[in-house]
């Protein structure tokens, strides 16, 4: 057991280390353009379209006992600079020159570390010591093994420091490429870490009651207005509203992230992660929230409880109906119905609590495409969750028991 005195000494040592760091003046660092080539390891042919990340990794100075190291310096998850590039038709890539000021350490030896990825090849990580030619080997194994390899590339030793790199926004091309790979591999790709795992990118939405500061107990729906871009890179954007139920997730927060899968299912389009979505929350029994321009790091949305009066409840439902109608009126109705499914289900659920006259005025009719979509969604869940019926076992039928017959066949007569 540590003594009080021991704790005190440790505190002094750590404080001293921090002090030494703080007292070291920042020094200038920099590098000219970093050029190289990506080639196929077997054929030597250039590989076009590979994403190359160049990391100048940082070694922190520590004086004292910090994290088990005595004096000198320790490897950190930081970089002094991170850049990225895409290889051209000849496999050549160029990472731009840079300069920076940083204190408290030095750049590691043999920098930059070059990390390359192209779908179908094994990811590669090497330092400048190994040269600037990156030889990518084609991957020949199972998809799940490929995903595990990528996961090693993300967070393994000499990797991208996916979960720790505070400068994760510096590699948007690599982030997008690995995200697309995760989508491409589907269920086999779950080992690949989502960008949500990167520092400050969880998108966590904390929902609180404005009065109590506690989480509301009622079900709700998150309304996210994304800006989409074309997957093939062609110009043009479109806005798409995705709705998510707040009750289907067990976490204490709800992730609102462009990287969350499944995203809005719009053929040929993907979320443009560079453009922040508008987020709004609808909770049963509460006023809908104000629109919030959503940061990738997440945030808190406070909702105000309705006073419970007929007027407030109906006014809120009318506003929601208006929002839904506006969405359904845009573009492809089937697509909108699918995107609005949680919102519609929540709305219909609240509608079912109304008196029939109000339902007729405010809600979607039972034979409407909305009601059918909600019904199908509710029952699809049930069907999907239903376990397979066990094989029927032949049960021996009990032998039929013989029945009695009526008493008959004689009379009672006088003896003579």
């Amino acid at each position: 057991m540590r003594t009080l005195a021991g704790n005190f000494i440790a505190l002094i040592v750590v404080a001293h280390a921090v002090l030494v760091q703080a007292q070291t003046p920042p020094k200038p660092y920099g590098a000219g353009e970093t050029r190289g080539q990506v080639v196929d390891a077997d054929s030597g042919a250039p590989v076009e379209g590979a994403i190359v990340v160049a990391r100048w990794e940082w070694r922190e100075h520590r004086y004292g006992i910090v994290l088990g190291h005595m004096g000198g310096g320790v490897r950190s998850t930081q970089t002094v600079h991170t850049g990225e590039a895409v290889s051209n038709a000849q496999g050549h890539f160029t990472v731009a020159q840079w300069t920076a000021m940083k204190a408290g350490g030095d750049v590691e030896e043999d920098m930059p570390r070059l990390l390359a990825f192209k779908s179908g090849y094994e990811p590669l990580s090497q330092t400048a010591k190994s040269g600037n030619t990156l030889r990518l080997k084609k991957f020949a194994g199972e998809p799940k093994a490929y995903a595990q390899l990528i996961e090693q590339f993300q967070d393994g030793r000499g990797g991208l420091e996916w979960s720790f790199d505070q400068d994760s926004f510096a590699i948007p091309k690599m982030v997008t490429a690995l995200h697309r790979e995760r989508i491409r591999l589907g269920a086999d790709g779950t080992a690949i870490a989502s960008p949500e795992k990167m520092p400050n990118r969880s998108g966590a939405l904390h929902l609180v009651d404005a009065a109590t500061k506690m989480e509301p107990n009622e079900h709700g729906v998150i309304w996210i207005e994304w800006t989409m871009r074309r997957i093939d890179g062609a110009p043009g954007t479109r806005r798409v509203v995705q709705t998510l139920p707040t009750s289907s997730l067990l976490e204490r927060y709800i992730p609102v992230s462009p990287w969350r899968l499944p995203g809005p299912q719009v053929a040929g389009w993907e979320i443009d992660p560079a453009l922040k979505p508008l987020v709004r929350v609808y909770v049963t029994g509460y006023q809908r929230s104000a629109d919030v321009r959503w940061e990738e790091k997440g945030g808190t949305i406070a909702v105000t409880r309705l006073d419970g009066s007929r007027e407030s409840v109906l006014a809120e439902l009318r506003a929601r109906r208006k929002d839904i109608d506006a969405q359904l009126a845009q573009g492809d109705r089937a697509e909108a119905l699918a995107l609005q499914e949680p919102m519609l289900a929540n709305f219909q659920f609240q509608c079912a609590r109304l008196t029939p006259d109000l339902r007729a005025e405010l809600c979607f009719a039972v034979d409407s495409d909305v009601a059918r979509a909600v019904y199908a969604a509710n029952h699809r869940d049930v069907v999907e969750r239903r376990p397979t019926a066990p094989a029927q076992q032949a049960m021996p039928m009990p032998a039929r028991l013989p029945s009695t017959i009526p008493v008959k066949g004689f009379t009672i007569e006088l003896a003579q």
Partner: protein
Amino acid sequence: MRAALATVLVLASLVTDAALTDAEKKLLNSSVSVDRAAEMGKASDAAGLAQIIALGDPNLVSSFSRAMPRSEPLPPAIESQVLAHFDDPVVGPALRAMAIRYQTRALFDRFYAAADKAYQDGDPVFEYILRTDQPGIEEAVLKLAPKFPTKPGWGNAALNFLGARKYPGAVDPLIKELSEDDRGGGYGPALYLLLHYDSPEVWRKASDGIERMHGDGRMTDAAYKRARTDLDTALRDPQAAIASSHKEEHMKALNARRSQLYQLMQDAARLRSEPARYVEAQGKYLAGLDEFASGLNDPAVTWEVAREYTNLGLYALLTANDPKGALPFLEKAAKGRDDFGTIAFADTLEHLGDKAGAIAAYEAALAAANDAHAPRQTFGTPVPGDNMNEFWRSWFAAEIEHLRTGSMFRGRVSEGAISGFWQFVILSRSNVTTYFQALSSARVVTGSPAYASHGLTNPVYIRGDWPEIAELYSRASSPERLQAIAQLPASRISLLLTMAEVSARTDPAAILSDFARDDPSGYWTTIVMGTVAHHQAAGRDGALDDGVAKLVPGMAAPGQPNPLETAARRFMQSRGLRVAEKR
């Protein structure tokens, strides 16, 4: 909460030795416990309710409310308090829930205003507002109907309420409701209600309505077919449809009265293990039901009540061992034309020595058995093949003869009567054992005997084998059983119950003595002994085939002849009777 507060106040005064303030003293004096509130409710104590309302505790209001008698309309002094505190945010909800069978238009109007403002489907006001039988509210209820919750298979409660009142304004909405049938929630009550308007004009309108709705696709084929069939039947013979409708309404009214008397029924059920008190309490409940049923003047309703009188009469006879006490109930049962009640009444009179009364009762029973055109065929129909009727007629005649002349039965018994007797024994025995727990493994049930329902599981319908009969014999001949049957009064109903044990006695004379005690004329004994003699002569496995061995397991007793066979031979010889086998 208040009790806790009072306790705290008392404790505080003890600890601090400080004097209580006037307000604290008042609170302590006025404190009402939950049990006390229930007592006040049971007594419909309006002053007590006022005290509870003043305390402002909704739980006490609910306790008061739950204990209130449900059979009577809401007393005016209580209804006025519901009205006065209708909107009270604390006790108002509990008071509104209390308004069972409220009576005033003023309270209806308050409920109406609340329902009109309601926006939630589950708002209890939609239930409360209809808890009244006051006239003149139909138009207002119809206006509110679109707001009422509807459930698949249940329809709209407001329209159901109006339909039950045959309100003309509800006909069109009810016809429209038919389009909701067969849409995943089964069938609602609309068709039933329309048919019970007892109006060919309404049926024609409904007929046109379903044609229209089916024609334009608003009604499913199955719903249409069902409505079409029922409406056609009603329109083909309106008088028959109306008569049938009245009958149903009477039964519904009877059941409603039963619900109103629920508390009395429950009070009685709690006393089931105390025979004398149970008979008194159940008699009180039945008197209330009977008074109502008499007003309806419907034989079917009268019979329903008669069955309950039979139950009580048999309980008084067998469980309370009080034949005299059973007579008034059995008499009511006989008047209501319940078969079991009728024979129990006549037989009990006979055993009590009321010869004239017994003759009259048997004569009435014989007349009923001979009447082929009575609205209710209490003892079947006097036609060939109705063996039970043949048995009734021959036994009643024999018993009347015995009562008049004092002579024992000595005569012919037809194959049909023998067969009918055993049918009756098989069907009845299980029901009778319900009234004498010492011999029955059946649990005590409060329901009426239901011959048809237990037939499927009656063990006598399954052919046994001799080891099984030997096991039955072993149980029936145990000293405990013999001791138990000795407690029963002399009665043919007792004989139905104890036939197995009597047949298992080891002394032929004791067997005949027991039969003679319960069956004064010996008619039943003749059939039982004749049947034993028949199986003895024709091969005893026949008793397995027809189930008689299970009813008289003495057939499996050791000895050749065994005691039962000896008793049968002696009996037949003493009466100068023989068994004639049919080829």
